[in-house]
């Protein structure tokens, strides 16, 4: 259990998390983990779905379920006076879910509607198609929400069989923060964990992704776009690798602040995009280093050419000592806002546990950042800056800008056009 007491507000945050995520979805059943997790609030012994929802609201509580590739987290915020009653309800939901067939049908149809509605969001289209192509054949390329075809194969038997694989006692973590004593929190955490099915253990292994080589383009074709969404990405680095912290600092120089190189060139000088950023993602395995912009359609090709040029300069010349000193100060000083609430503070060791990160990943953040040298940044950037092997995902109207975008990418090995409503 991860715990921190904070009496400033009559609020308690509680997270029950397991190191088992959508990567565990059986072949052809994409979305099963998320569906199973969502079914927890759709009825338990003696209570219908409507009664569970009404009870949560009546207690002054809020419940959310987050499913990533590597973990499932069930999060609760509750007014302190209702904490015991909420835990009583949770124990019942975890120990005696009914997985009612009719509720499952409703949830699956609701999920299908959400998948279709998500086609309206260009940003999420770009992310989805980037991941689908970049992590092709790897669990990280799957959609945690599933696809229309896979959702239609999920049965009650699937959910019942999946539940103990997903929410098993061993491997469960509980994080509690807020207006509660440690002894009371520990007792509540024990009750929650004991409510889970026996079993579980170490997190299932996920192999490291190995993206396809070469420069590739995925153009997501959507009508009448006045603007594009562009993601350029390459293989990232995991916190276990020595180049992780140097690459984080190098990427912060490139696109991690409002005054970064990318922001200055794309937004401040040219006004091409409202936002422009770069980040190093990670999960239990390396994720991707991505660069995001969203210029007007008329500027999309020029913006991609500019970004590729900036990436080449970054890779070839690295960063300056002055830039490094700047982002080091920025990261060290802004760390205060990563730990300014009890809720955030208990979330950091929880992430370490769920993603199998080095134990000091968050607790020694400042030391990690201060320990990065200019030489290590240059080496990390030279090795990992998106260059020869990269993927570019663009959401736009292909008839208007497709050929210009393709022409803006030198040495393109592969280009595909995907209709925006293909999944």
């Amino acid at each position, binding site marked *: 259990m991860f715990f921190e007491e904070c009496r400033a507000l009559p609020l308690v945050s509680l997270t029950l998390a397991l190191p088992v995520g959508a990567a565990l979805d059986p072949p052809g059943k994409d979305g099963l983990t998320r569906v199973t997790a969502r079914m927890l609030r759709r009825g338990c012994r003696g209570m219908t779905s409507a009664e569970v929802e009404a009870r*949560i609201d009546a207690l002054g509580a809020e419940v959310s379920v987050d499913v990533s590739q590597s973990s499932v987290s069930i999060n609760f915020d509750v007014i302190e006076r209702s904490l015991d009653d909420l835990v009583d309800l949770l124990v019942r939901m975890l120990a005696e879910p009914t997985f009612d067939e009719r509720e499952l049908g*409703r949830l699956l149809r609701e999920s299908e509607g959400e998948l*279709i509605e998500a086609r309206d969001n260009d940003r999420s289209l770009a992310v989805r198609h980037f991941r689908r192509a970049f992590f092709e054949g790897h669990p990280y390329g799957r959609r945690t929400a599933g696809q229309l075809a896979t959702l239609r194969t999920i049965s009650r038997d699937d959910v019942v069989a999946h539940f103990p694989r997903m929410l098993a006692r061993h491997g469960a973590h509980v994080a509690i923060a807020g207006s509660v004593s440690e002894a009371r929190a520990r007792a509540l955490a024990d009750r929650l964990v004991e409510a889970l099915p026996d079993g579980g253990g170490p997190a299932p292994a996920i192999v490291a992704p190995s993206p396809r080589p070469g420069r590739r383009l995925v153009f997501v074709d959507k009508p009448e776009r006045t603007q594009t969404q562009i993601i350029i990405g390459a293989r990232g680095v995991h916190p276990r690798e020595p180049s992780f912290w140097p690459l984080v600092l190098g990427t912060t120089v490139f696109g991690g602040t409002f005054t970064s190189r990318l922001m200055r060139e794309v937004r401040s000088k040219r006004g091409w995009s*409202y936002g422009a950023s770069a980040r190093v993602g990670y999960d239990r395995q390396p994720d991707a280093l991505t660069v995001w912009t969203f210029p007007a359609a008329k500027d999309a090709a020029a913006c991609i050419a500019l970004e590729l040029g900036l990436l080449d300069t970054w890779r070839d010349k690295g960063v300056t000592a002055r830039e490094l000193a700047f982002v080091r100060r920025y990261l060290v000083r802004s760390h*205060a806002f990563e730990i300014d*609430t009890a809720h955030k503070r208990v979330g950091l060791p929880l992430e370490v546990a769920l993603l199998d990160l080095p134990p000091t990943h968050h607790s020694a953040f400042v030391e990690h950042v201060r320990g990065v040298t200019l030489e290590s940044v240059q080496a990390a950037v030279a090795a990992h800056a998106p260059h020869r092997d990269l993927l570019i995902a663009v959401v736009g109207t292909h008839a208007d800008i497709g050929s210009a975008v393709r022409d803006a990418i030198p040495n393109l090995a592969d280009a595909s056009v995907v209709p925006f409503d293909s999944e």
Partner: protein
Amino acid sequence: MTSPTKRREGGRAALAAALSEGQAPGARVEHVGRVAFGPAMTIEHYRLGNGLTVLVSVDASAPVLSYHTWFAVGSRHEKPGKTGLAHLFEHLMFNETENLPAGTFDRKLEEAGAESNAATWLDWTFYHANVPRESLGLVVRLEAERMARLVLRDPQVSSEKEVVANERRYRVDDDVEGAVSELLYKTAFTEHAYGWPTIGWMADIEGFTTDDCAAFYRTYYAPNNATLVVVGDVKERDLLAKIQKAYGAVQPGALPVEDVHPEPPQTSERLVTVTKTTVTDKLAIGYQGPAFGDVDHVPLSLLSEILFGGRSSRVHRALVQEAELATEVRGWVSTYRDAGLYEMHAVARPGHTSAELLEALDREIERVVAAPVDEAELAKVKARFELALVQGLETASGKAEQMGFFFTVLGDPSGAFARLEACRRVTVSDLLRVARRWLRPRSRSVVVVHPEPAQVAS
């Protein structure tokens, strides 16, 4: 306006007097009073001689502070043909000043580890910086500098217009939800400035000149039109001394009389139907609603929670879970200084239509107009109301935002807690009364969106 809980406090008055000794009139400081902010916190209310309001709440729970500057200017203060100026100007405030070359403002804040941003809406504009406590002096100097000594040049204005045009494409032109919201307000407001979008019409954004921006700055960015809110690990005397030094010489402005055009009562339903690049039908409804300070605002907000708040709400149950007509439903009573809208939105599932959504929604509305809600339903939404308030107060920034917003819109920095008290007093009868007063079909505007025929989802 003085809230009922406000009182003067001798120690602070003496502190203000001591700090004012030998100061120029604009830099003298007066302690206006102390206001309780919930059961555990207080706000000290000061005012400088030049009219600048300062609200301070010491909170040493983390070694950080949140520094907000709220200006009582928003898109409601614009003119037709110049819409979006308040928002464009917010962008320009991050540029050059007399003592800081372009880019330096952000760079200095980032080097200090700050999180900073800004927002503009119908009634207000605010800037905020969350900084480690060691950087108090820096943030005071920087914010005072841009309040008084901003430099506006053609290249920066041109570039920022491009950025804002791109922001508009992102939030409105290529986003069906943003486009529907814009259309709803344009339909519902025929006279009041709430009818045009805060981001501005594209033609207006493209047409702004540097002179437009300079005139806006001179008119509205004055200390007597601003409120500083500082929450966090600060020492009050040190903070006030720094504020006096940085802002004391800034001259107050002659604020113009606002050319307000109140919205006349709506006497018949307005219906607009459009086609958009979208995959399913959408529905947006705007009933003429109360101002944020209206006595009906809290009960109508609670009624909205009964209808739309969470999965146990009536509309969610009826439209999403039972009839399976909708993917998403939501409702919100606008929080504007003048009378606004009670907005309702619904997204149809594939194969269902806006007409079905409207019919089903009307059935639920008719129910709350015809008969009282259950006591248990009211108790439930009161609990949700309380939770939402508490969740918003976890960080120094969250507290500062509540104080600044309520002071700027209602004149009461602890208005969030006054609303909580008002919420506790609401009865089932109140809900029936506000339902019958505000949910009248003749005073609503309806926007119906159909997908382009080629894009209908199956």
